[in-house]
């Protein structure tokens, strides 16, 4: 089932489906793709920020990134089987 990365439970393995452009053009979505958020990449949420669960720490490939919820909302994932 496809869902947004920002709604993923903590430390659950998932696979990136796609990154959706929020605007046209969307430099943030482009940068997310450059950073490795592309279809088929394994991804998981590592931590949520102490205030309101924002920002998120995301493990993509071998790398950890802090993303704000609005950034992570562009990423759609599917839970790993």
């Amino acid at each position: 089932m496809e869902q947004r990365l920002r709604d993923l439970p903590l430390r659950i393995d998932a696979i990136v489906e796609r990154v959706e452009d929020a605007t046209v053009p969307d430099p943030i979505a482009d940068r997310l793709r450059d950073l490795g958020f592309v279809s088929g990449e394994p991804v998981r949420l590592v931590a949520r920020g102490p205030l309101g669960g924002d920002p998120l720490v995301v493990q993509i490939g071998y790398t950890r990134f802090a993303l704000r919820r609005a950034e992570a909302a562009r990423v759609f994932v599917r839970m790993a089987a």
Partner: protein
Amino acid sequence: MSALAMQVALVGNPNCGKTALFNRLTGSRQKVANYAGVTVERKAGVVRTPSGRSVQLLDLPGAYSLAATSPDEAITRDICLGQMAGEARPDLLVCVADATNLRLHLRFVLEVRALGLPMVLALNMCDAAAKRGIVIDRARLERELGVPVVETIAVRADGAAALLRQIDGPLPPLPAATAPADLHAEVRRLLALAVTVPRRTGEVDDALDRWALHPVFGLALLAVVMFLIFQAVFSWSAPLQDGIDAGVTALADYLKSVLPDNTLRSLLVDGMLVGTGSVVVFLPQILLLFLFILVLEESGYLPRAAFLLDRLMVGAGLTGRSFIPLLSSFACAVPGIMAARTIQDPRDRLATILVAPLMTCSARLPVYALLIGAFIPEQTIAGIFNLQGLVLFALYVAGIVSALLVAYAMKLIRSDSIEHALLLELPSYRVPHVTDVMIGLWERASVFLKRVGGIILTLTVLLWFLSTYPTAPADFAGPAIDYSYAGRIGKALEAVFAPIGFNWQICIALIPGLAAREVAVSSLATVYAVSATGDAAAGQLLPLIAAQWSLATALSLIVWYVFAPQCVSTLAVIRRETRSWKIVGIATFYLFALAYGASFLTFRIVSALT
């Protein structure tokens, strides 16, 4: 090849260990400056190859992609494309990739390979990769990429030997210039062929991040780290500062005893020596703070702190990345404003620069110490707290809170619908390397001294002139400084500052205080020492003002110091970093307005109550 030395450039993702490799290759033979027209740091150095050739090495800013989204990345792109005015296109690119993070870094390697320049791939941190059980088939990767691949360990003295040999040899042939249509697919293919990774993450990182990023423990840890830093910065630097102070005083006394009493001596001793001393005395504190920041930076903790504080900062119109510049500003706003370069978003960067002067810098401490000592009784509150300490703490909090409020007001004024991204990489934890920390410390210290030293020296000489000339005639009844330009300006200013309770002595002291805030203390001493009827010495200033000033005046002056842009160096650095006099004007105006307003309220309220 031309007679000019070969130009080699290091390119790579942020956090690939590029700068450590650069340090290893160039040692102390490096020059840090800015690229023409922008505030991006340019690091260049000379490398001696085994055969004795000199090679010019350029450490390009880290980039995730050549599709640049920040000034740093634009510089890297332009230099690689040979489109940067005043910079030669490199003869050879050394693309640096972290061997533990090839999934991300190889994509950029492929982008760089398509540039059509001779290149070498340096697989950095091979020791860390081996420790994590990552096996890389170097020969296979070399074959598939079509460029030479060497292994490097930037933290080891001989870790760059293979790279040096490669640079020393003939230029590698141009790589096939075509970029694959899908870079990510190509990266996956390369990884499948040449790299075995037992585990996607480092076990150490996982374990540490469980605690460091935890909503409760993470914040508690951050608070402890900050507390320890402040404790160390203020208590460890005290003896060093006393030593410098004593040294400057001794030197001044010595010069006064050997030089004839004339204008030149006064300029040398009262102007230049004392002026330089007032800068150098803060060096221990600033260096210690830099040291801690560098260690935290090298260890990989700082981006985690930025993550923890991001939401709070965003609420106030800043960003988690503002944390480091604002932390530096507690030592001095000058390095803090310079550190704002690490914030890519222009709006966030500007907001950070504008509020950095509100952080309580160490130059305010002597002023606070004098006023608190004179006017706040030493008594214990609730059994454990010292009232004087509480007031000092409140002044720090006042600075932080007003910075958040000002940033918030700016956010409201310049409300824009553009989204400002965080996209912050949290690199693997690393044990900081002594050499790299020392080189970083040396760089920051020399940049600080260059920026501040010149300005303060010029200003102290100017202010020395203002407070020395014109010399009072022999029959002039009042104190000499009264007759000088500074005295006249101070008296004229009294009309402006009387509503907030400042007398003319304070007004005079505010003028030399423009060079460096703490100079106001010695200026007050001068004003009172020469104007008092008795032979009141500088050391007796404290009881003197305690007797002569009202509590309202003292508190008003303290509040003034929380806000007032009483530091020309800060304004000069804002100008340098933003390249805009308009921003300097805005900063000066809003800080003065805040200072005047807050002091006015303080003076009126306290006057009414006492």
